[in-house]
């Protein structure tokens, strides 16, 4: 028995998310009286791999031979399934991101393992195996019993604190049987946006809504985000109007994020918008309407004109960052 955690890498590097996954897996393994194996697929150097050990992975399976460049769901599913069988995994942990959402369901069928997706806490109990997950886009939480012998969890980003440990890990080479020449996904074209912080990775997000009035008013909002080291986001009508790029749209039909701070500027707080941001640790809002629903979700608020207030916030942030 063991807990297997799939730690994806980005051009050979891990992210905070990777360490959240390992920290979670280690805490769950403790509840289950077992150990943690991390699986890394693709080229990652020794030093980077060893970082997984600092968050509680006892063993690191390093599958770096002959791995296809393209993300092919069938291939990666097979690799993780092989590792799970080899390790006798009774729990597999992945991120609830693009990759995790693509692979966890396939893995579920292959291993006949029930899924708890978008989990934000440690299992509520081990027997029966019960997880705590979001339902109805954050309007409720469900306690879900996973009945199968193998269980899969996809962990919500920024929902579990990092926990460093003293121990160190052993790295084992893992030669996969999956045949990389059979990969069916063919890439035609890649469009990367360079340099921009990923909205899903950002710890602070400054977001604008229709209350910003015009695309020409975004200057101080972007300036505030830069001063805070934050990413920028927006409500759906703002991206629909083309005021801001589609990647920034948060909510039910946009990105679902959980930063430490979400600052909503000129956003009314419709349920569909809240569905994408309600897991944020803190929400602050600026709105001219004191009855705007965003203030029911926010811990801090200013009733006032965003266009007047934003420049003053920029000054205040620059002051404290001095």
């Amino acid at each position, binding site marked *: 028995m063991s807990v297997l955690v799939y730690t994806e890498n980005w051009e050979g590097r891990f992210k905070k998310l990777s360490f959240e996954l390992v920290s979670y897996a280690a805490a769950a393994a403790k509840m289950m009286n077992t150990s943690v194996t991390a699986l890394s697929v693709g080229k990652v150097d020794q030093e980077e791999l060893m970082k997984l050990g600092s968050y509680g992975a006892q063993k690191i399976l390093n599958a770096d031979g002959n791995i296809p460049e393209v993300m092919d*769901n069938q291939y990666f599913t097979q690799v993780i399934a092989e590792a799970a069988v080899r390790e006798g995994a009774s729990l597999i942990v992945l991120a609830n*991101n693009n990759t995790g*959402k*693509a*692979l966890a*369901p*396939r*893995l*579920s069928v292959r291993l006949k*393992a*029930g*899924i708890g*997706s*978008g989990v934000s806490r440690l299992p509520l109990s081990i027997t029966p195996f*019960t997880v705590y997950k*979001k*339902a*109805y*886009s954050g*309007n*409720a*939480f*469900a*306690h*879900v*019993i996973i*009945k199968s012998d193998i269980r899969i969890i996809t962990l919500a980003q920024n929902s579990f604190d990092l926990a460093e440990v003293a121990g160190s890990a052993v790295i084992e080479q893992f030669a996969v049987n999956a045949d990389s020449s059979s990969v*069916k*996904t*063919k*890439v*035609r*074209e*890649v*469009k990367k*946006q360079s340099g*921009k912080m990923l909205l899903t990775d950002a*710890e602070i997000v400054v977001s604008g809504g229709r209350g910003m009035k015009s695309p020409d008013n975004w200057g101080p909002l972007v300036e505030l985000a830069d001063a805070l080291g934050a990413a920028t986001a927006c409500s759906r009508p703002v991206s629909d109007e083309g005021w801001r790029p589609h990647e920034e*749209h948060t909510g*039910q*039909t946009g990105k679902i994020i959980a930063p430490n*701070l979400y600052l909503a500027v000129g956003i009314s707080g419709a*349920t*569909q918008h809240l*569905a994408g941001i309600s897991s944020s640790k803190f*929400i*602050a*809002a600026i709105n001219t309407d004191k009855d705007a629903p965003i203030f*029911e979700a*926010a*811990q*801090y*608020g*200013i009733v*006032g004109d965003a266009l007047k207030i934003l420049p*003053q*916030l920029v000054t*205040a*942030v620059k002051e*404290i960052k001095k």
Partner: protein
Amino acid sequence: MKILVCISNVPDTTTRIKIAEGNASIDTTGIQWVINPWDELSLTRALELKDDKATGVSTVTVAHVGLPSSEPTIRKALAIGADDAIRVNAESSDAYFVAAQLAEVAAKEGFDMILCGIESSDFNGSAVGGMLSEFLGIPSVSGVSSITFEAGIPVLTREIDGGREAVTVPAPFVAVVQKGIAKEPRIAAMRGIMLARTKPIKVYEPVPVEALTRVESFEKPAPRPACIFVDPANPAQLIDLLKNEAKVI
């Protein structure tokens, strides 16, 4: 080319979710049931592709696993323009069960492209599409934000971290769709509503499959503390609170 669009039936997205006595389920009184937003957009895109003769799309079928009570949702999909529908007559108890049922009917009927949404807005499972592809042993592409045809071949654009990439996979395949797939959901016209009444809904009985998960109970999110209002004449105080009280900046 035959397209299958899998649709789930969910409470309207503005619903204030209430939990029923005993916490085992949600209180469904007064709830308006709708086609899951993603599935409505998938259906729209499938119909757009069919309208374009160059694609060679011949039919758009919708499939749903659910009890007769969800037929209005299926009829709505037919009114929007789907050619026909399949319903597997069973409660959609968990994603594994639902995907197994969909796989069974998809294998029987044969489709070239199967569309599923990235998540149902009720259970937020993000699971059925990927599971279905694995049951069928066919490729899947997830996070798909656009489907176009180039020389008769579907090209799928998927979101990757920090960008997007256009990929192809051989048919049959499952595309799990997200934002961007269609701009606005297509709306049923009067003629469509009339036509929908005569379009066929094929009903299959479920195959025996054991669900792997079970919802034990629901709870409401912990109430957020009341909002602390900062004097608009002194916005700097907000920055002070965020730094020294919330400790997030």
